[in-house]
């Protein structure tokens, strides 16, 4: 069963091409992640799918309904949480929720079971103005508002941007629970670590999908052995790694550098080389590639 599909979507703003021949298909009850940096076209894609923008060319359907012709029906069945905090700051938590419930022809009581887990965390503050909530609470409220009418398809545009790690974790636990309710979830995020929590992910850059697969397959497809390199002189290390002829790729990755070697090179060679350049505390170890490594690899092509 297909919950959502798009065929050859194109969209440009003036001379900037936001989406190029983009196609996707999302199964019912799936958590589908769209992973990519800012400006990759995630929000444009979401807006086309939520009937808010018209594509220049290409078609898309949500639950079998055309996003152009049947936009009114689509608006009845989708939940959308835009990237920017988009609740009424001067309304209280409860007023916001009540308002969105009425807008979607429902009441808080009717679908309370859906939002119970999230909402009960912010319920103690239900008389507080939404503008005075913390980032994590705002996001929980926004999710509650997007869920209150039990949508068939839920669109979450960067829901965890600017949210603390604990709240992010809780948020994803919520999404897992919603999945069991049969709600299809399309979520975009710039955080690669969240990608592994999706059923399938699409890596997007410059308006094009680089790859679509399960996170496990994407990682498994990584062609080379990946090594993490560390030393005391990190700054100098970066320059030296870039200049070394036998290193195929190197990426800065938090506290370490991820590198891949040319075919016949061994980590020992690198260690000797670095030692000769008087680096101290050199550590080189083999690691499992992550989604981010895959993204970096694909986006360099």
């Amino acid at each position, binding site marked *: 069963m297909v919950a959502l599909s798009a065929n050859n979507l194109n969209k440009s703003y003036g001379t900037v091409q936001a989406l190029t021949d983009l196609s996707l298909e999302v199964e019912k009850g799936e958590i589908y992640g769209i992973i990519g940096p800012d400006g990759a076209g995630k929000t444009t894609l979401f*807006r086309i799918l*939520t*009937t*808010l*923008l*018209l594509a220049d060319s290409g078609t898309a359907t949500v639950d079998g309904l055309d996003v152009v012709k049947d*936009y*009114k029906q689509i*608006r*009845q069945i*989708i939940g*959308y*949480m*835009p*990237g*920017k*905090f*988009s*609740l*009424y*700051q*001067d*309304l209280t938590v409860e*007023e916001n929720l*009540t*308002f*969105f419930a*009425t*807008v*979607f*022809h429902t009441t808080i009581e009717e679908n309370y079971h859906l939002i119970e887990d999230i909402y009960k965390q912010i319920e103690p503050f239900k008389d507080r103005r939404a503008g005075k909530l913390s980032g994590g609470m705002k996001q929980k409220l926004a999710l509650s*508002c*997007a869920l209150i009418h039990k949508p068939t398809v839920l669109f979450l545009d960067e829901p965890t941007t600017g949210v603390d790690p604990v709240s992010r974790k809780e948020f994803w636990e919520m999404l897992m629970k919603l999945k069991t309710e049969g709600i299809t979830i399309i979520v975009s995020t710039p955080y690669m670590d969240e990608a592994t929590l999706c059923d399938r992910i699409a890596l997007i850059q410059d308006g094009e999908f680089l790859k679509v697969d399960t996170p496990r397959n994407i990682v498994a497809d990584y062609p080379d052995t990946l090594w993490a390199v560390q030393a005391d002189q990190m700054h100098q290390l970066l320059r030296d790694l870039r200049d070394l002829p036998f290193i195929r790729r190197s990426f800065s990755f938090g506290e370490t550098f991820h590198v891949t070697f040319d075919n016949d090179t061994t980590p020992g060679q690198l260690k000797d080389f670095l030692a000769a350049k008087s680096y101290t505390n050199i550590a080189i170890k083999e690691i499992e590639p992550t989604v981010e490594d895959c993204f970096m690899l694909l986006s360099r092509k």
Partner: protein
Amino acid sequence: MKQFRSFVRKEYYHIFRDKRTMLILLAMPIVQILLFGFAITTEVKDVKVAVFDPSKDASTQRIKERINTSEYFTIAEELTNIDQINDIFKYGKINLVIVFSENFAENLLHTGEAKVQLIADGTDPNQASTLTGYVSGILGSYQQELMEQYQVPFQIIPETRMLYNPQLKSAYNFVPGVMGLILMLICAMMTSIAIVREKETGTMEVLLSSPMKPIYIILAKAVPYFTLSIVNLITILLLSVFVLGVPVSGSLFWLAILSLLFVFVALALGLFISTLVNTQMAAMLASGMGLMMPIMLLSGMMFPIESMPPVLQWVSAIVPARWYIEAVKKIMIQGVELQYIAKELVIIGVMAISLIMLALSKFKTRLS
């Protein structure tokens, strides 16, 4: 319907919780009315005049007394030499000099004619014409009194070409103007800002992706500002009747209908602006420059339309406030019957319908 009610309630929350804005909106008409009524007034009160009187006879004495005792003037100086006049204006303390001819009483009684020269400070033409008008009025009433006394025609000829308007209450001119300005400001500017604010904060995205009909979004926005403008209208009318003493001579019912039509024009304009811009700042500028300026300058509120060059007169014809203000003047101050404001009613009505159609056709069910 429940959807709509809930939306309207939300709009009221927005307005009531933004205390500063609400205060401004409610206080604005009061401040404007009082400001125009008392501070920026062309009315005459205790204006200092100087007199040059070579005759010093019974008649000139009598006239000077009358001028001095009137609430409009105070005689501040008696000049002894005609050459002092230039200097006295330079100091700016005196706004008007009254010069009697020599042998004033004698001329008046024997030839039936006497001359008075009124010299006003021309730097403020409005004030000058008002002052000379008032003095002519006092002279006229003295002349009237003499004629009743002697049963002979007397004539005191004030040498001034300026016209006399017996009322000259500036409030009569600006109350309709303020009404037009306030209604336009609240309905057009605030509605457009309120709609654009939803675009700016991103809530419009959520609303548009919901089953809420876009037309409801608009109407719900308009309702609170509509109410607010009614409150303001009542405030203005109460203030003008009880504080400024400007009566509502005509039919209050038609005044209400007229105002209602004008409110629709303003709402449609506000909606139209909101479809063109994406930030609150732009909405404010657009309604400020696009609506306020024409009302202030071209509606006849400040400057009479008849004295504008023809091109500006044509331009003023498309300013809705011009017709509204004109009709309000007629119905409120002159107290005319319906048929005399039919033209304005029709023009405003046509403007309302076509602007609402234009705005609705422009309103998008999608972003951008």
